[in-house]
């Protein structure tokens, strides 16, 4: 029983039909991770007791595997009466896990802004909130665009973890085909190829964005 190329090709449409779910998870996961990560970083910067708590939380998240976080949320939340769908748990897990990494990205992005910028804004009498919105945020966004893009690719590559919770994304679909036909090699290989293609396309996009931004900074 060798590798059946025809069977592999026949499984492509069914696996591709789940690409919408994969992208939905990736995009919502990224948005969740960015928002949560920004809140974590702001709280960490504020210092005090909450700041230290958040600092520990970020370290803790970064020292624990995504798979275990997914199991934790999936099995523990219902125990406390919180019944969420596997999809919601999966997106929550991805958001929580990657927020720890994105907090570090935001930190580096804010740290890289020269101190003279907010000082100049203060000297000009610009309000604190206006300084954050019009001086710091635009420069931070430029600093973090490239690493953010790389983490988006990482989140995309982590979406197949959700197959473990039986979310019908592309790997889950491939496993469905496998368990119906008892042929694992072909659908899994196809899923692998589709994910690799997707990741390469998006990382090329990120590189392009990086070059554009680098070109616009040098004047």
């Amino acid at each position, binding site marked *: 029983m060798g590798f059946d190329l025809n069977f592999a090709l026949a499984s492509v449409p069914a696996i591709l039909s789940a690409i919408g779910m994969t992208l939905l998870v990736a995009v919502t996961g990224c948005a969740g991770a960015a928002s949560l990560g920004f809140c974590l970083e702001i709280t960490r910067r504020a210092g005090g007791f909450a700041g230290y708590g958040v600092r520990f939380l970020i370290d803790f998240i970064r020292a624990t*595997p995504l798979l275990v976080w997914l199991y934790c949320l999936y099995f523990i939340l219902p125990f406390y009466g919180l019944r969420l769908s596997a999809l919601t748990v999966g997106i929550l897990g991805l958001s929580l896990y990657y927020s720890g990494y994105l907090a570090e990205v935001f930190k580096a992005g804010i740290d890289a802004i020269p101190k003279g910028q907010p000082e100049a804004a203060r000297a000009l009498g610009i309000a604190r909130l206006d300084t954050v919105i019009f001086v710091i945020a635009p420069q931070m966004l430029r600093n973090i665009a490239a690493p953010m893009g790389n983490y988006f690719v990482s989140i995309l590559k982590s979406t197949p973890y959700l197959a473990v919770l039986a979310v019908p994304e592309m790997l889950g679909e491939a496993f469905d085909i496998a368990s119906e036909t008892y042929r694992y090699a072909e659908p*899994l290989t196809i899923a692998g190829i589709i994910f690799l293609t997707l990741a390469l396309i998006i990382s090329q996009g990120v590189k392009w964005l990086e070059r554009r931004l680098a070109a616009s900074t040098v004047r």
Partner: protein
Amino acid sequence: MSTFDIWLGILAGFRVTASVTLYGLVFAIPFGLAFGVAQYLTSGFARFVVTSVIEFWRSSAVIILLFVFYYALPVIGVTLSAMTVAAMVLGLNIGGYASQAVRAGLQALDRGQKEAGQALGLSRATILLLIELPQALLAMSPTFINLVIQLLKATSLVSLITLSDMTFRAKEISQVEFDPVPIYLSLLLAYFIACYPIALLGRWMERRVSPATEARHGI
């Protein structure tokens, strides 16, 4: 089931977790070094080939690679143990990331280093081995430490291909006991205890190798 028994159960899987991590490094270190240096030295078509191999291991979703190699290799007549597949896939994935760190470290060196070596009449290999690599590897050592943590965390995936690591044991216990809360929280803590000392080591090394970046900008 007492907390003590839970910890005993999880720790029974530590040997497999540690083995996969160490065997993974056996794949990751030579791959990262060889391909990082190769990408730095080659150009044209040779560089394209080297980059393609790196991108295959680095840009694929590691969870899918693990399944593909576990299920597809026997179909084409290659039978490897689950441990070998796990070490190879996780190791080469991390090795792909490591190769990028090696290459970036080499590229970041001052050109004068290489030119001085040439002026002294040293061969290209001697310049690489005695001048460029030691500096590049030292500068990149915090990144390598982070990759070891990534590898250790990724070993939780081997529970999905029947290896009885810490995650596998925890799942086993929770299926018998039906008391997921303490079991999965202990599992999370077990990974934290394994990874956090390595993270602290990485942070210490970062301070050692880059005293210049200590000068903080920031707000």
